Every structure is written in C-alpha cells, then in structure tokens.
C-alpha cells in the first residue's frame, strides 16, 4: 500500500522526539502540522497559525466541503510568505530550519516561524572606536543583512543566496551593489561557492578557505569585518560581501593588504591624524615582525652599527648571560607565546593572576637568575604590543617574527634582508581575484592613493578604486564642480 505524505515524513524522523505533530480536522480535511518545538516561535505559532486554523475549521462544513491548501494560504495564513514544498527531504529540511510544515490532502506548505536566539547588536571587541558607529554584526544573518539595508537604501543592493553544508544547511548570502561591483569577480565567487561540497559550515572561516586563491594559504587573502559601517564603505568601493549564518564576521572580496592598515577610526578624525596613524601602523607592523630578528643580528654580528654608548649599555646588561643571544630571545619569545595562549584559554578571573606571574617570572626572576636580559624583554614586549596595530594579521605576523628571529640569529642582517625580499616578492605576486595585493602602491595607481598612506578628505575621493569597481568609477563630483 502506498504511504501517505504524513506517513513518509513520520517515517523519516521516528527517533527525533523534538519534532512535534499537531492534527486538526478529520477525514479528507485532516490537517497535520509538523514543527520543532525549540526552533519555532511558540507564541507566533499559537496566535497566528494554530488559533486562526482552529477558528477557520469551525466555520467550515467539513463533511461537505473539501478544504484546499490555497484557501488556507490566502484566507488564514496570509500574513506569512508561504511556499509549497514538494519532496519529503525538502519538507524535513524546512522543519529542521525552524519552519512549521502544514500537510493537507497530500500537499505540504512551509510556514517560516523560526525563533532566533540572538544577542543584541553591540560594538565588536576587535574594532572599537572612540568616534563613529558602534554597531556590530551578530550571529543572525537576517539581522546582519538588515543592518546593511538600513544604511544602503537602494535597489542596487543585491543578494544571491545559497544553502551550503549537507548536514548544517547553512544560509549564505553574497551581497553586492549592482553596477558598482565587478561582474567577473561576482561570477567567480558564486562559482566557487556553488562548488563547495562539505558536510558543515560552522563559521565564515570555513567559507574563507574555499574562497582563497592560490596553493600557499599562509597570508590572508580574504577581507573580513564585524562592522556594518565598514562593510557599507567596502561595498561602495566595489567589493563583494559574503554573509554566513551563525557568524558575526562578514567576508569581503577582493582583499588588498592596505585594507588592514585602514581603521574605521581614520574616517572620524582629521586626515592628517589618519595619515599619521596609518604610517605608524606600517612602522609598527615592520617593527613587530623584524625587531627581535634585528636585535639578535645586531648583538651577534652587526654590533658596529650601534652607537658606542648604546652598545656599552647593552653589553653591560647582557654580561653574565650563559646563553647565546638567539637562544635568549627565542626563550623570551616562546614564554610570551605561552602566556598569550594561556591567557586566551584561561577564565577571566585567573587572567590577573597570570599577568602577575608572567610579569614577575619574566620581569624579575628570570633576569635576576641570569637566564634572560632586560633588553631582550624590552624588544620582545614592544614587538608584541606592536603586533596589535593590525589585529587582523596577528597570526601570520607572530609566525614571521619567529622566522626573522631565527634568520637574524643565524646569519645576521643579511638573513633578515634577504628573507624580507623573498616574502615581499611573494606578496607582490599574489592577486586577490585579479587585484594585486599591494595596490595602490605596486602597481602604482595615483587616484587610489587618496585613501592610502596620505589620507585625503572625503571630498577629494572622487573616484572608486580602479581595480575594484567595474565601469562605475565616479563616486561624486569633484570639489570644483560641487562649488
């Protein structure tokens, strides 16, 4: 005997006690509703679905008339955007996504009732600003897209939706501004997303690795942000955003290195200050990565570079140390790395204790015991602080710092310079969806430099970045024309 649709659905979830069934009516007019208690908004379900249905059924002569799905859709549940679902697997997918599925007369329709447990929109911990908007993305994709729609009230804001992950069925939205974003890049991104065949997408990081081009995935190649205002400005420049349900981090493409040197704070201060801050970030980055290596190189081989008085003071500090400079700085670096890792894992209540232990052990005891010298602590500490001038690239910079330290210790400044050249050469060869990594400096694009190291005021930024935007390059009339 052929199974009914209700039986087919029930046979699929026999062991899942979470899926509830409500049956209304009788005979040919029997209505069955499937839903998961923990996923649907109970009050909405009761007030807007169950009660109106019961009222509706009371008014009908169930023995003489046959109730049609369309009638329920238009007369009872007209508030919802309801779609008919055809296959059993899709019905189950909808139930698992938080919809209530109503079955009548071997036909099913899905009523979106999902309840989202979400935190409120708050300032993200990684992009705090003194001035400027404090909203940050949350884990709910609809809220996040709403935050963007609130700022970009244009029909040109387009969305392409996907469901990725065989087990997680994660919603992913590609968001872009039509007429501004490059179509070829958009096609490439969509093609890559369509190719994803994975059991689950837990966070946007999972998607990031699928979107990265190239074999060596050491350096960051996909941009990310937690702030709607930053994302809006990136969309206006011609970038494409990828929202992943369950992640407060929105990915952006194409990515260029200079993006990470910009901060939202730069746009809420005078251009001169923003310029100064950006230059400091670059110096901070180079200092953070190379300082321990240069220090070891200077101590081991190239000490003649140092002024004599400075050299004397360093020599007096390291007097009595039993280990070579390279080992010493590596010890300090590893101690720092261990403390960093431990502080990330440790409960907040113990963090203070850890800081005290770290400070005492490193600051006093190790120096007194002659294991390490004060200059090496100063170098590693300042380099570690400097790492945070670009918080988005801490991971790769922490590893490069160790590489430069090893080279500086083994072959002095020669090693540091040659390694620097190799790394920069590799970076210049990287392209993110056809856009060179070092743009607007290599290749040099004059018009794009208005928002680079030397930041100019908003009125001067007449055009969008040349390689990011498609044909629509003009953002505003030039200053003269506006006058």
């Amino acid at each position, binding site marked *: 005997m052929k199974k009914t649709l209700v039986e087919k659905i029930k046979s699929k979830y026999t062991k899942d006690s979470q899926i509830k069934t409500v049956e209304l009516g009788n005979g040919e007019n029997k209505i069955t509703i499937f839903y998961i208690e923990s996923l649907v908004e109970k009050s909405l379900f009761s007030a807007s679905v169950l009660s109106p249905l019961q009222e509706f059924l009371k008014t009908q002569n169930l023995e003489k008339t046959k109730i049609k799905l369309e009638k329920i859709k238009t007369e009872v549940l007209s508030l919802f955007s309801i779609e008919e679902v055809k296959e059993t697997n899709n019905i189950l997918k909808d139930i698992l996504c938080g919809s209530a599925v109503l079955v009548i007369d071997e036909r099913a329709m899905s009523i979106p009732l999902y309840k989202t447990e979400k935190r409120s929109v708050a300032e993200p911990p990684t992009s705090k600003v003194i001035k400027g908007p404090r909203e940050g993305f949350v884990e709910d994709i609809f809220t996040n897209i709403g935050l963007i729609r609130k700022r970009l009230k244009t029909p040109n804001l387009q969305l392409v939706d996907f469901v990725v992950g065989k087990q997680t069925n994660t919603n992913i939205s590609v968001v872009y501004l039509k007429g501004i974003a490059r179509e070829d890049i958009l096609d490439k991104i969509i093609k890559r997303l369509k190719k994803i065949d994975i059991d689950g997408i837990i966070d946007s990081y999972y998607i990031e690795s699928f979107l990265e081009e190239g074999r060596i995935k050491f350096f960051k190649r996909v941009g990310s942000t937690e702030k709607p205002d930053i994302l809006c400005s990136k969309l206006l420049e011609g970038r494409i955003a990828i929202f992943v349900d369950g992640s407060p981090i929105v990915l952006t493409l194409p990515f260029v290195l200079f993006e990470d040197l910009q901060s939202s704070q730069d746009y809420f201060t005078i251009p001169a200050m923003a310029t100064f801050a950006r230059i400091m970030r670059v110096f901070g980055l180079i200092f953070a990565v190379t300082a321990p290596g240069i220090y070891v190189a200077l101590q081991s081989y190239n000490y003649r*570079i140092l002024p004599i008085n400075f050299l004397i003071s360093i020599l007096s500090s390291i007097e009595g140390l039993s280990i070579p400079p390279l080992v010493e700085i590596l010890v300090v670096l590893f101690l720092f790395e261990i403390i960093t890792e431990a502080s990330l894992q440790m409960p907040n209540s113990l963090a203070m204790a850890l800081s005290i232990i770290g400070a005492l052990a490193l600051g006093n005891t190790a120096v007194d015991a002659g294991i390490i010298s004060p200059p090496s602590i100063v170098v590693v500490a300042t380099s570690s602080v400097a790492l945070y001038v670009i918080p988005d690239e801490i991971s790769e910079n922490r590893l490069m710092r160790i590489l430069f330290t090893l080279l500086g210790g083994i072959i002095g400044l020669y090693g540091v310079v040659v390694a620097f050249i190799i790394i920069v050469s590799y970076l*210049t*060869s990287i392209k993110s969806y056809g856009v060179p990594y070092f743009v607007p400096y290599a290749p040099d694009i004059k018009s794009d430099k208005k928002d680079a190291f030397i930041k100019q005021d908003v009125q001067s930024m007449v055009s969008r970045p040349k390689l990011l935007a498609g044909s629509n390059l003009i953002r505003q009339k030039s200053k003269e024309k506006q006058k």
Partner: protein
Amino acid sequence: MSARQFYIVLAISVITMKMQKLPCLVAGELGKDSWIFFLVYTLINIIGIVLVFVILKRLDLKSVLKSSKNKFFNILRFVLMVVTLLYFLVQALLVYEHIQGLFANTLFDSLSWSFFSLLLIFAVFFLAHRGIENIALNFELYTWIIVVSLVLLAIFGATQTNYSVILPLETIDFGNILSKLQMFSCWFGDFFLVLYLSVKARDIKLSKTLFVYTASMMFMTFLVVVFIGIYDKVAPLAPGLISVISEQSLLDLSIGRVDWFLILFTEMGAILACAVNLYFANLCLHSAFPKARPIYLKVFNVAILYVLDIFLLVDLNAKIRFFCGFMCYVTNVVSVFTLLVLFGIILFKSIKKDDKNIGINTKKTALKGFNSRDNKKPKSLIKGDLGI
C-alpha cells in the same frame, strides 16, 4: 610592465649595479679622472640606447626570440641568445659577487659563504622565476626607500668630501680613460637592459628613457666625485662606492653606523637588479632552447651563477685583472654582434618586405607562459612566425 615601471627598473638597476665595485676599480686605475670615465660611459650608452630605439622602431624583439621556418635564422638566433645569455649572466654575477663583499667583513669571516649564499641564490632565483612583472612591482614598491637612502647617503657624503680632488681639469688623460673603458667594458651595455626590458614594457619613449638614464648616470657620476673626494682616506681595495661614502659620512657624529641601514635598503635594489639580469639570462636560454622546460633552464642558470661565484670568483679583488681582461673581449663581441645581427634582420626584412609572411606576429610570443610558474611547454612556439 607599465612605462613607469620600466623607467624605475632602468634607473635603479643602472645605479645599484654600478655603485658597487666598478667605481673602486676605476678609481684605482684612473684616480681623480674616474668621474670622466663615467661621463664617457654614459655617452656611449646613450648612443647605444638611441640605436636600440632605432632597432625597436623597425623590429619587434619578441619575434626575434621566436623560432622560425628559416634554419639560418634559427642558428643566428641561437648564437645571439647564447652570447646575450653570457652578458646577462656576467652582469648578474657581478652584482651577486658584490652583495657577498658587502657582508663579508661582518658575517662571512666566521660563516661559510658557500653554504649561506644559498639563501641569496634562492631569493634571486625566486624573483627571476616569478617574472619581470613581479620584479618591476618590487622595484615600484621599494622605489622611495631606495631613492631616499641613496639621496641621504649622497648628502651625507657630499658634506664630507673634498671636491678639489678632481682638479685640475686640464690634466685629464683621455687616452688612458679610453683604454680603461675597454678594460672595464664588462660593466657596459645598459642599452642591453633597455633592449630586453622593451620586450615586456609598453608605451616607452626614447626621450623619457634618455632623460631617466642620463639623470641616473649623472647622479652616479656625482656619487663618484664624492667617492673620489673621500677615497684618499680609505684603503685602495674599498668594498664598494656606497660603503665608502657611508663609512665616512657619519663618523664625526658618534652615532654608530646607523647609515648601514641605508646601505641595506640600497642593496635591496642590487638584489632586484641581479634578479633582472638573471631573468633575462633565463629568457635568452629559453629562446636558445625553446623545447626545454623553462624550470630546468632557470635552475641551470642559477646553478651556473652559484658555481661561478663560489668556485671561480671567490675573490673578485684578486682576480679582477684576469676577469676584466677576459670579459672585455666577450662583452665587446656580444655588444657588436647583437647590434649587427639585429640590424641585419631589419635589413633582411626590408628586402623581403613584399613577402606577406614576413609580418611579425607580435601577439603570439615565444615568451608567453615563460613567466608563469607552471612548467608547461610554451604554447606559442609556433614555427614560421618570421616566415623567412
């Protein structure tokens, strides 16, 4: 490569390749007249660049690098490529050798150069392997660092030097200068760089090229004047022009050798210039043996560079006379032969101008795919592009 990148590569390469050992060697031979040597040198290369542009106006170098139906042309191309390969390898070697000299006292007295030079050889190989466009991007990125370092060093040096050393002008011995030009001719041939860079550059102009080249060489000549002014005070076998200028410039301030960082920045330009020469050496070798896999040729060239540096030129100072004596003939032959062959091709082309096949296909270049990191055989090695 954009025109801007072309000018940057040209300017920084000619300065960084010449600011090394050449001024020391020339000053050792010519003393106060060394700066005249560089002026004459500039003049000869200006003529060379003009000739190169005359050639480029009538002949697309890309087509010369390709195989042809004509066997004679193929043999000629093979010989041409081998001799130019020699030139670029020697240029790469000279820069490479100097980089070792720069770190020799501080580092390689205690460490093995033959082992640790592998890092530098890898860097040069890596840069050349990634292609001239990538090298040009690197040049573009470092331009300001290198230019500011050079200018600062020149200013530091200019305040310390004794300009009267170059006087009196009437005692200049031009005969001696011309003979030394012959001796040091292995450093000549900046027009070769222009010729080969033009394969990858677009929209370059003769006037701008001449301006950039002349300005760079004038700056170089000024550095030589500064160097000669200081030269009295230092050992005859100075490690390099820039080191000497730098060494003297900040002594009075007692702030150590912080200027050494400026030298390091300029050395970045030297490493990139070395990679440019190696890239063109690879290009020539690939044109000579178009059927071989590019990666093998690249490894072969870099291995040659390493072996020559370690085993033959372990001490350039000691062997410089022998080296220059031998290389001057090679370079002269390469220069004259290359120009003659290229003019010959133009002449041949103009005689056969009625032949439709003579049209050179500039779109299908034998070098297509050469820069790419894949080891696939270039697709466009189509025989008969010259159709002679």
